[in-house]
């Protein structure tokens, strides 16, 4: 299959600490195709951002990739050194983070930042790069580009800044964009504008997108497929409609039930008892077993795993084998 842009196999991210090695990402495999948006959901600490950072080669030491592989359009990227990875980042993988202010230098005009990025990754001269920067700004929906190109980041609103960051991520026509909570800092009406923009650009250019967010609503409206993470592991993968409407993993099911509905009223929200375990206290077997209403002896003994190339499925003994004895 040649249209697979990102191929992650059995990825394991570890953090050595004084109290022992913590596993933040535990045996994650996933694939994203050209033009596909994969949503990564999970609660804080589930490892979704960490997976994105590992793909970008931006793990903070002492965090490290301890096992597995990451391929970008067939090229292995997890073994590259820092300088080689810098070439990949920006050119072949674009990144969009939650807070646009951390991605933009407050002391430089946005146009200069775009021109610098474009010239770093392409052979364009200064004038051509500036013309390209203006095209990109128009494409991401910034009005009055001729004036705005010479503004500083603080002169833009939050939504407009995030558009600039998207333009920056698109500079070198990357194959993959990792977007980590790109709309979390924005108000709902602006959030809808940004996700629609991301979706349109991805469709038009065939860019693969990994959309990391805790917001199931955003995933439901934006992603094609979704991967649900829990305690560093994949709980469930599948087409977004299936996962939202017919979740197979009891954790996904609980997660969906705990979101207040816009359409119907309930006296009590369904809730999952307890909380996600900390990384230093992950129970044996399925990490979700202490909170799961269906857990059996097998769940406390053996870790259920998804196949590395599974397009859809749940890492759950009950879902896969129908029994937990």
């Amino acid at each position: 299959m040649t249209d697979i842009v990102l191929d992650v196999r059995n990825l394991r991210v570890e953090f050595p600490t004084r109290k022992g090695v913590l596993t933040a990402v535990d045996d994650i495999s996933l694939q994203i195709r050209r033009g596909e948006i994969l949503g990564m959901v999970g609660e804080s600490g589930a490892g979704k951002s960490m997976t994105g950072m590992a793909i970008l080669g931006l793990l903070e030491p002492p965090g490290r990739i301890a096992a597995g592989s990451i391929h970008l359009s067939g090229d292995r990227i997890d073994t590259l050194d820092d300088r080689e990875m810098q070439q990949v980042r920006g050119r072949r993988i674009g990144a969009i983070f939650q807070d646009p202010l951390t991605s933009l230098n407050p002391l430089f005009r946005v146009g200069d930042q775009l021109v610098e990025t474009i010239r770093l990754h392409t052979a364009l001269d200064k004038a051509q790069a500036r013309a390209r920067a203006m095209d990109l700004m128009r494409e991401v929906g910034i009005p009055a580009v001729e004036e705005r190109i010479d503004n500083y980041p603080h002169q833009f609103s939050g939504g407009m800044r995030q558009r600039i960051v998207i333009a920056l991520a698109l500079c070198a026509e990357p194959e993959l964009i990792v977007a980590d909570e790109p709309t979390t800092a924005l108000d709902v009406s602006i959030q809808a504008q940004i996700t629609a923009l991301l979706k349109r650009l991805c469709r038009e250019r065939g860019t693969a997108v990994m959309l990391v967010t805790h917001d199931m609503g955003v995933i439901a409206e934006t992603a094609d497929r979704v991967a649900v993470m829990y305690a560093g592991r994949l709980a469930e993968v599948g087409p977004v409609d299936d996962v939202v409407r017919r979740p197979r993993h009891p954790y996904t099911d609980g997660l969906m039930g705990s979101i207040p509905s816009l359409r119907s009223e309930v006296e009590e929200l369904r809730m999952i008892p307890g909380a996600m375990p900390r990384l230093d206290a992950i129970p044996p077997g399925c990490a979700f077993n202490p909170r799961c209403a269906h857990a059996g002896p097998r769940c406390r003994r053996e870790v259920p795993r998804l196949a590395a190339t599974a397009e859809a499925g749940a890492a759950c003994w009950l879902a896969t084998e129908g029994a937990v004895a």
Partner: protein
Amino acid sequence: MTIRSNAILEVDGLERRFDVSAPWLNRLIERKPRRTLRAVDGVDFVIQRGQTLALVGESGCGKSTIAKLVTGLHPPSDGAIRFHGDRDRLQMIFQDPFASLNPRWRVGRIIAEPLRTLRPEMPAEAVSARVDELLRTVGLAPADGLKFPHEFSGGQRQRISIARALAGEPEFLVCDEPTSALDVSVQAQVLNLMKRLQREMGLTYLFISHDLSVVRHMADVIAVMYLGRIVEIQPTKDLFANPLHPYTRLLLETIPDLEAPKRDRAPMGGEVPSPVSPPSGCSFHPRCPLAFDRCRRERPERRAEVLDRRVACFAAEAEAGAAV
């Protein structure tokens, strides 16, 4: 003044202005004028005892400023806040359970603080018994009182905030985005807890949130704010069944919906204008699909003759007039 028998809080013509002028020297040299930001600009509402009124709106609409005015953290610039209850029995729950708990204090001391302030005569054993009881009420164990805040997750910390707020046996709680910092499954636990406590103790909530699905679950009445003003206020059922203001419709339209995802939506353009220089007339008119001349000139008010003071909008007035 109208006294409604069961009202616990009445807010009339509330205004809060902030001076956001440049420093004096800049004003002198660059001849810049003084600038005022009207964070809250003529707000009226009433909360009935035992009910939940929610304030919703996007960032900068003034909802948190109202929370601070009601709790007395800011004095109002104009207007009146009448609280028909015991001021000591008004408490607040904040958004960030990481910032609102003293990291150097044990949880037991944090929860006991309101007791020590409000009932200094209470004997130490009674205080510690009350703390244990409060911890159990919010789903924690009495032993947790000996721990420090950092030993708890975000959801558990918000439970501690709630226990502290309950210590003085409040009748009225101002909750400013109490679950926005929490993950959804934990949010469900905290919302369920808050509803249970309201039932059991007859609490009244002023609930501030940007999340319409949370508000729908919690509130009896919803007030939608835009640039410092309430543009629409309706009982929750009516608001969702029949939103009157174009801004409310925009909000309902744009929130991602799990049950019926709008995958090919055309999002409405525009952004919230700066509250320092709000548009003339109705401040929503530059983004409003229904705006006409009058909206640019005149500011709509919520009027008793029109839809029972539920909406401040000339288009909605015209619609209602046509329907009558």
